[in-house]
């Protein structure tokens, strides 16, 4: 009964029927109270967004996996202390972090949220070394500004690591030698399967991020792992041991392993020389090759798989999501078969494995891994298509026949699959290298470099929401709002329901003063997800553009309420407070933003501006300098740093910075203007006039340029020119204050000997 209940619960989880799962799990825990079962119940709760329930159930449990789940629940409930204690018990400093890479990642997040940067970096690095496909850890490292080059992280060591994970031990990455006898292979496979199965364990639905990485190391605790339903994760499974999925399948289904599973199992042994016992294996091999794709021929297969299952079942500690996956594998199989019938020689699933390796990041659950399984040993032309399509099975009979022929090739197949894994791993890593490098560069604000890197991506990867958003962000940081708008627009077309980066898009539209587009974007985002901070940020930007700062502030505060760890919302609140002249609250908001993310240079800039307005020039300079250190390429920050230095009367340094700013971005007129200002202060009127003439070319309708020129001419006693320029300045329709100032200046012109020179 325990097995049935467990399987039922996991089945329900797989089908997202949480109420059913929770109910069944509760019955299970009541009948057979055990830590494994409570883990399963906790998983159900976590999936259903009831972290608090999971928390209560797991409190005090000590199994590694329980601790991991407990830490997850604590993290969701914002109880960071307890989460940390669970993962890293203070009195057992040598205890292993549960769940390897995933545990390290979670611990890293906790340290990041509690401001312990070094520890966070250490743990993210650990996570990456254990599982190089844990992209989220690399992302966090980039955000912290401590990421190594993508080439090293996603390099050869990573490749070896992935291959080890994805191949049975017997195969290993290096010696896929046909020398391994079937038996030998089988036994090693067995071992491999054992080891691998824990790995395939798919953990938590709670961590969608982690899921992305797909492959988690979990501590080999049968109990713990067993309770995890397999989700996603097993894309990697596919490579290795076909038996494992089978085993899992068998375990899960309990009573009658679906034929597909059997197929898979059978296939498995075929490609990877795994399998419970050699004898069935060989027969299976012979029979299954083709069916792997189609697994159709159930009758025959059933027998074989039955045997295989029997063997693999006990081995499998993890329960795989059979139902779905089986179905998936079914379809996958069929699609796979679509690939071609000539598997006799080539079946090197390797290629499939390769694809498989790429797949994990997509986090496709049962489907993908079943694909993988089949892939093994299957020739894979156009595997992408087969993988994605779901064709119907072709006639099994022919397959089975061909299988017989393929029997002997199984051994060879195994070796080849190993190399396939290598190829797959290296393909995936190549992709991740590009993405990682691009992300790292854009976090370091080396935007042009990041853009150059992203361009190297293949078209289909480039035209995805994430990449296009990153491209948009890079343009935004370079103050090229038109290009950013374009990129973000494409991103919206590519994935209209993704909210990632949309807050930046709304700011781009704000800068471009496109109020129609901005309000449309805000409306769309809110209707997509009312509970996402990005939507409210966009709404707030919309109101702010219309100068309704109070409503904008309310919207940004809502965003903060929804996610207090979203630094940009805090910064935007700060901007609105400053616009409302409430400097105290503005400072508080900026500081909250900095507490969340120290490298959020906008907040440093905001603080600098507040202090500049309050004439606390020392503070202002310090804050602008901090912003400058984070983003040394922003000409805007440099020009403000220069302004602060100018106010502090450190004119020489100010001029240096202004020069740098001018070099950094030729399109930015501000540093030139400020340079002219500084030159006026040091009484270098000719220099100033030169700069201003240049500016006149660039922005002929800028009133302040003419006004400043007018002032300089007045200082130089060239009244005609002064008059001319003041007149031009007035023509450009400046603000009322400036009109008053300029007109007053004109009046004073007519009294040249007036000493008072407050212009």
């Amino acid at each position, binding site marked *: 009964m325990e097995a049935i209940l467990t399987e039922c619960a996991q089945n329900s989880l797989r089908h997202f029927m949480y109420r059913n799962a929770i109910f069944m799990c509760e019955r299970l825990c009541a009948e057979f109270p055990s830590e494994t079962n409570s883990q399963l119940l906790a998983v159900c709760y976590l999936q259903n967004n009831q972290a608090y329930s999971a928390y209560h159930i797991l409190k005090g449990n000590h199994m590694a996996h329980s601790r991991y789940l407990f830490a997850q629940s604590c993290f969701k409930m914002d109880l960071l202390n307890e989460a940390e204690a669970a993962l890293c018990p203070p009195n057992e400093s040598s205890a292993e972090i549960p769940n390897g890479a995933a545990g390290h990642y979670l611990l890293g997040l906790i340290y990041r949220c509690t401001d312990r940067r070094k520890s966070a970096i250490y743990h993210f690095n650990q996570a990456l070394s254990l599982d190089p496909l844990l992209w989220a850890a690399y992302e966090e490292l980039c955000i912290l500004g401590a990421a190594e080059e993508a080439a090293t992280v996603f390099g050869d060591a990573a490749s070896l690591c992935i291959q080890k994970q994805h191949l049975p031990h017997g195969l290993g990455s290096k010696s896929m030698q046909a020398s391994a006898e079937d038996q030998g292979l089988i036994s090693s496979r067995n071992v491999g399967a054992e080891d691998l199965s824990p790995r395939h364990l798919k953990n938590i639905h709670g961590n969608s991020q982690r899921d992305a990485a797909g492959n988690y190391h979990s501590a080999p605790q049968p109990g713990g792992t067993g309770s995890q339903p397999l989700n996603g994760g097993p894309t990697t499974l596919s490579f290795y041991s076909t038996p494992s999925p089978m085993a899992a399948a068998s375990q899960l289904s309990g009573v009658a392993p679906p034929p597909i599973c059997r197929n898979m199992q059978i296939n498995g042994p075929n490609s990877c020389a795994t399998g419970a016992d050699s004898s069935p294996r060989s027969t299976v091999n012979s029979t299954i090759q083709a069916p792997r794709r189609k697994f159709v021929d159930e009758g025959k297969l059933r027998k074989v798989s039955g045997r295989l299952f029997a063997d693999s079942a006990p081995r499998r500690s993890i329960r795989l999501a059979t139902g779905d996956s089986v179905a998936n594998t079914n379809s996958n199989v069929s699609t796979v078969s679509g690939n071609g019938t000539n598997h006799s020689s080539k079946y090197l699933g390797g290629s499939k494995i390769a694809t498989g390796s790429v797949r994990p990041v997509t986090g496709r659950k049962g489907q993908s891994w079943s694909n993988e399984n089949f892939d093994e040993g299957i020739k894979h032309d156009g595997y992408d298509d087969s993988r994605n399509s779901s064709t119907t099975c072709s006639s099994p009979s022919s397959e089975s026949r061909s299988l017989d022929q393929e029997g002997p090739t199984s051994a060879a197949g195994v070796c080849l699959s190993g190399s396939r894994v290598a190829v797959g791993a290296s393909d995936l890593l190549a992709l991740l290298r590009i993405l990682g490098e691009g992300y790292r560069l854009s976090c370091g604000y080396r935007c042009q470099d990041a853009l150059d890197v992203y361009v190297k991506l293949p078209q289909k990867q480039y035209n995805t929401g994430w990449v296009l958003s990153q491209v948009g962000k890079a343009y935004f940081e370079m*103050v090229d*709002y038109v290009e950013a708008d374009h990129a973000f627009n494409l991103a919206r077309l590519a994935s209209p329901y993704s909210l990632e980066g949309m807050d930046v898009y709304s*700011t781009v539209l*704000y*800068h471009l003063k496109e109020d129609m587009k901005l309000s449309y974007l805000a409306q769309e985002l809110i209707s997509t997800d009312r509970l996402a901070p990005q939507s409210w940020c966009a709404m707030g930007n919309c109101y702010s553009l219309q*100068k309704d700062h109070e409503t904008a502030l309310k919207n940004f505060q809502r965003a903060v309420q929804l996610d207090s760890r979203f630094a940009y919302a805090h910064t*935007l609140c700060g*901007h609105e407070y400053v*616009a409302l*002249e409430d400097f105290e609250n503005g400072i508080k908001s900026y500081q909250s933003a900095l507490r969340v993310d120290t490298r959020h*240079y*906008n907040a440093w*800039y905001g603080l600098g*501006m507040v202090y*500049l*307005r309050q*004439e606390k020039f020392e503070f202002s300079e310090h804050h602008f300098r901090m912003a400058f250190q984070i983003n040394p390429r*922003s*000409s*805007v*920050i440099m020009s403000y740093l220069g*302004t602060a230095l100018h*106010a502090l009367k450190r004119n020489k340094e100010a001029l240096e910075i202004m020069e740098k700013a001018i070099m950094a971005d030729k*399109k*930015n*007129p*501000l540093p030139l*203007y400020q340079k002219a*200002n500084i030159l006026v202060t040091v009484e270098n009127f000719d220099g100033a006039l030169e700069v201003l003439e240049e500016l006149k070319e*660039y*922005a002929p*309708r*800028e*009133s*302040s340029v003419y*006004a*400043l020129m007018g002032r300089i001419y007045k200082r130089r006693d060239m009244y005609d020119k002064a008059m001319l320029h003041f007149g031009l300045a007035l023509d*450009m*329709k*400046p*603000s*009322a*204050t*400036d*009109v*008053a*100032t300029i*007109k*007053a200046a*004109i*009046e004073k012109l007519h009294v040249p000997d007036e000493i008072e020179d407050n212009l």
Partner: protein
Amino acid sequence: MAESSEGEEEGKLVGGNQQLVVDDDLCEMAKKAAWSVSSCKPGNGVLSLRDDNLDTYWQSDGAQPHLVNIQFQKKVKLQLVVLYVDFKLDESYTPSKISIRAGDGFHNLKEIKAIELVKPAGWVYISLSGNDPRETFVNTFMLQIAILSNHLNGRDTHVRQIKVYGPRPNPIPHQAFQFTSREFITYSTVR
């Protein structure tokens, strides 16, 4: 500037506007100021002048002139005072002669504007600018609006709302002039 129907005579304002329309480069300056009145009837106090509700009004309760004092925390530039008064509703309570004074405090207020309203009905705009472009703004710590007399010789007065406007400060601090062109404005802030 704001719409208003100017009377033909100097210093007389006829009629009023139903809509409050103010230039974009003006913003309300008196939100953080200290408002006080010379006298009021209980229930119709100074809060009614600032509550954005045209149905509530301040009613004075003493001798003329009735005073509304606005004290700012620092010297501010002011350009426009807008009152909402309605002859049809308030008849003899409607202010007629108004004097606007400015200064550092109660001890040195000086009249800067004197105006006479003739049957006003709605928002009345009183500009504080002088003729000289140098006098577009009044730079002051304190503003006092004195109601010297009412229509039909009424003793007490009703005023429904008062708003005070001045120029928007330069969004870029420590800058002499504000930027007008798109190229400059795009690069002038980080958001």
